[in-house]
């Protein structure tokens, strides 16, 4: 494991003080003991760690054209949800995270699963130790919305732009950037769920300044986790220098993609609505069916997987 930052930044729902114990448990007693501990103690945020062991939570990777010569950078790798399944089908994965405990955990997983082609790195997106045009693919799974919190002196959009431009530099000419992120106007945020970043209802839907006023009042901090609509992402990525964009709609969310269709694939959407939505989420089915008649059902996809090329 390599470290390029000397800070005590910690991101994660799991309490930081529990991390040494969890690592020790995994190291000495294995994954079964770890899972049993997490389930019996009902630790907050345990699902993130448990789900990182489930290969099906990384199914978005099938959208990528990877082969045994591909070199991949996983930015914000967490506990290795995507890095580990990807490493099985490519040459090398550089797994980077700014939280030391997560990288430490991933390093242990790499050892336990005997994967020699993953290099865990403790670094932030701003001080990545790589030269230009190094990667065939860069993965940002649930990361882009958070980067706005890392540089408080600039607007969140500027910081996101800067991160995307940095990724563009690191990509090979034919490389692909994989970004998984929420839709600002995703159906579930209209009334059912809280904004997963601010933990408040409707903040993603509000104008930014109003959302910031609300979060300052209720959470004592500015609203800096910007998400966008599809058109907003198109503008952001184009401004960062990406010319070719593909949008996919994972359902119910990108962290747990049970169904994935291409944005604008009307036939697949119709089949999905009639077979899955009607049976599993009737309210969403009624809403989307109505909008489908106007050709607008795509606007409210809960999240996106964006494949961007230079």
């Amino acid at each position, binding site marked *: 494991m390599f470290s390029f930052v000397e800070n005590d930044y910690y991101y994660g729902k799991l309490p930081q003080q529990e991390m040494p114990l969890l690592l020790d448990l995994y190291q000495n007693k294995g994954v079964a003991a770890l899972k049993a501990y997490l389930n019996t103690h009902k630790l907050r945020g345990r699902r993130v760690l448990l789900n990182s062991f489930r290969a099906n939570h990384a*199914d978005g990777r099938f959208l990528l*054209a990877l082969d045994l010569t591909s070199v991949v950078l996983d930015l914000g790798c967490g506990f290795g949800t995507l890095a580990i399944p990807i490493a*099985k089908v490519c040459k090398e994965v550089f797994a980077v995270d700014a939280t030391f405990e997560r990288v430490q955990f991933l390093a242990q997983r790499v050892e336990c699963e005997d994967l020699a082609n993953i290099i865990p790195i403790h670094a932030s997106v701003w001080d990545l130790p790589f030269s230009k045009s190094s990667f065939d693919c860069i993965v940002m799974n649930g990361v882009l919305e958070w980067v706005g919190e890392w540089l408080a002196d600039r607007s969140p959009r500027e910081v996101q732009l800067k991160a995307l431009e940095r990724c563009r530099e690191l990509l090979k000419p034919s490389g692909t950037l994989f970004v998984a992120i929420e839709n600002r106007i995703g159906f579930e945020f209209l009334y059912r769920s809280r904004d997963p970043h601010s933990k408040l209802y409707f903040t993603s839907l509000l104008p930014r300044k109003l959302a910031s006023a609300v979060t300052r009042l209720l959470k004592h901090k500015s609203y800096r986790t910007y998400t966008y609509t599809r058109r907003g992402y198109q503008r952001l990525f184009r401004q960062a220098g990406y010319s070719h964009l593909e949008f996919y709609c994972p359902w119910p969310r990108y962290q747990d993609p049970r*169904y994935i269709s291409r944005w604008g*694939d009307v*036939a*697949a959407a119709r*089949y999905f609505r009639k077979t899955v939505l009607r049976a599993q989420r009737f309210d969403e089915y009624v809403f989307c069916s109505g909008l489908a008649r106007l050709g607008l059902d795509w606007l409210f996809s809960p999240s996106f997987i964006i494949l961007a090329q230079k």
Partner: protein
Amino acid sequence: MRHVLEKELQKNWSSLTGQTRAPEQLSLLQIRGTDWKASRVHFAVIDPTGQPLFFAKVVRDPQQNAQLEQEYHLLATRLSHGNGPKPC
């Protein structure tokens, strides 16, 4: 993987569907296999009216999957009795 599958489907379209020309862009819906331990992902290939034409099964891991191979042979045997398309 989706890209590889799309190419394969385009190539074998006539033997799979009986139609002479494949659509320029295929409608695919990626569906998680019901039992993830069996390492399967399904892709439903949808026709323009929103009806599934067939399902393509794909293994998650590159290692040979014995269960999937068994299913393939079972399917091939069943299909050989009729005039349906051969699994590929």
